[in-house]
């Protein structure tokens, strides 16, 4: 963003704004207590994932005592096969992060160009066609879409043109597709506002091409709106992955995800193994709160920075 701001065309676009917009937003963000709480939760979650990697593989084997309650040796206790719950949760956290980052990145790559084109050419056939396709995806709730796609296609590895994609690829792809309508709408709505600004006309007058205006200057100015939405969608992605796993539609056991650990806990929980239900859920909850708080905090920081 800062690199783009130094290009000559952008100084035309935002002459009325201070040049240190990024620093300004960052300062507002780090002085926002709610946002910092959010950052703390996300760091905690990433920490668990990293710690699990450091611990090595031995903890994942069925070597410990069966159904042990939480202790110094097994922080989260063990399950009915003697596997360390902390190690399994840490592996699940890695899956959650992969799905969150992967699906948001892919969703943005597909949706932002679509939304921007639709916004710039609003009310033309191109806008109509693009937004109708987006509407079809939006017309199904995420879990129903997941059920249809993963339920019928199965949850095994996917064979595409000679490559074998791991099961996680399907989950990432599905959540990315579900994100497309949301991101596309935000990009479209922001471009609709932005294209009425004086700088767009000014750039047109000095002979800058339409696509360069759209994907150069206009793009830089809609980045804040997109970042806020992307942070919020990380939370949705974590939630969706865990929920799909919980319904048996995600990555299959014995490979752990936070959702399928919870699903398995359902049978042994009522025998007294409360830790199996509490800890994985607590981790999911913490990271969802984290991403939501960070999303809200970013929204506030950008809003105040732009003075509106």
């Amino acid at each position: 963003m800062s690199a783009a701001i130094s290009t000559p065309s952008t100084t035309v676009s935002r002459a009325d704004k201070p040049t240190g917009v990024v620093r300004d937003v960052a300062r507002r963000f780090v002085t926002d207590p709610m946002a910092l709480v959010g950052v703390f939760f996300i760091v905690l979650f990433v920490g668990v994932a990293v710690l699990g990697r450091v611990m090595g593989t031995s903890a994942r084997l069925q070597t410990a005592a069966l159904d042990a309650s939480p202790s110094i040796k097994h922080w989260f206790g063990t399950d009915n096969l003697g596997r360390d719950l902390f190690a399994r949760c840490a592996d699940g956290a890695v899956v959650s992060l992969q799905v969150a980052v992967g699906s948001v990145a892919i969703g943005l790559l597909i949706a932002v160009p679509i939304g921007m084109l639709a916004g710039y050419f609003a009310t033309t056939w191109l806008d109509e066609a693009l937004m109708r396709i987006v509407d079809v995806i939006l017309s199904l709730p995420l879990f129903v879409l997941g059920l249809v796609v993963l339920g019928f296609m199965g949850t095994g590895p996917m064979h595409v043109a000679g490559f074998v994609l791991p099961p996680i690829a399907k989950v990432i792809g599905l959540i990315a597709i579900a994100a497309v309508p949301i991101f596309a709408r935000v990009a479209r709505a922001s471009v609709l506002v932005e294209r009425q600004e004086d700088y767009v006309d000014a750039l047109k007058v000095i002979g800058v091409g339409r696509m360069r205006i759209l994907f150069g200057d206009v793009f830089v100015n809609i980045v804040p709106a997109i970042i806020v939405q992307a942070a919020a969608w990380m939370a949705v992605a974590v939630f969706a992955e865990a929920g799909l796993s919980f319904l048996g539609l995600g990555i299959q056991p014995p490979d752990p995800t936070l959702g399928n650990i919870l699903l398995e806990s359902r049978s042994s929980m009522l025998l007294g193994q409360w830790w199996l239900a509490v800890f994985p859920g607590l981790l999911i909850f913490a990271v969802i709160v984290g991403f939501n708080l960070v999303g809200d905090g970013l929204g506030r920081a950008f809003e105040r920075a732009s003075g509106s």
Partner: protein
Amino acid sequence: MRAYAIRRVVGSVAVLFGIISLIFGLTHLAPGDAAATILGNAATPESIKDLNHQLGLDQPMIVQYGRFISHAVRGDFGKSYYSTQPALPTVIHRLPVTLELSVLTMIVSVTAALGLCVLTARVRRRWLTRVVDAVTLVGLSIPTFWSGLLLLLLFGLYWRNIVPAGGWTFFSHSIVDNLRSCILPVVALSVPTIALLYRALRSSMVDVLDRDYVTFARAAGVREGKVIRRVAVPNAIVPTATVAGLLLGYMLGGSLIIETIYSIPGLGQLVVQSFQHRDYPVASASVAVLAFSFIVINLIVDLTYASLSPRVSELYARKITMRDA
């Protein structure tokens, strides 16, 4: 208004058609041979071939597609592979349970969200607003599958015999027991919907409280409580119709999860089970019913909203959609 209504209806039919086509496409991409699945261990190459012929699975794809669509339009999705009952009636039979849970959840959520909104509307209660805002953010972040499990753990293991933890008593059997078996599922389902509704109501409330007519009512000496309840709240409710679609999505997704956790014989449980058993006719029929209800309810909400607020159809006349405004 009429142009808008026609456009929305035609669009909804097209989307529904798209979903039925998607179901067809995916059932045929699905791994495994349906005939082999049905016959199980008793399958011989001949019997598989016979059954495939009987089910019409040996015909060209385009013929199968045409037949699937024409049957689906008439509500015929085939027979369940297991119970051999027609698929659609099997699905419809499960609807009342899910509907009851959804209606109760709606009543609880709307009441609670309105109550919270009235509480936080007073200017001097800034600290209370902060607390409620934080709590609803937490509520929105608790996954239904976790809150459902925790309630099951608490009331199924530690505080037993207070409310039924899991299972279902039908309405026709005993009304009291039926309502008792609704308690935990409805609580788990309501947490995110209360939070969502409150947040929508709150943001429109903040907007409404700034309006001239509220200032005027206060200036005219109407008590603050009455201003909030009689003037602000009715005006704040209308714009929240825009989150109805989102709310419905939450409830549908929630019903899949909650009915699975509490072993409730509703549509949600049926969908999940039919996919687990690869019972494709029932799976197709239930997904079609879910999509159909979702689309129709959204359509009704949008049309009601448009007729209440002429701005929407005006915006449509200028070919800009509501969401851009």
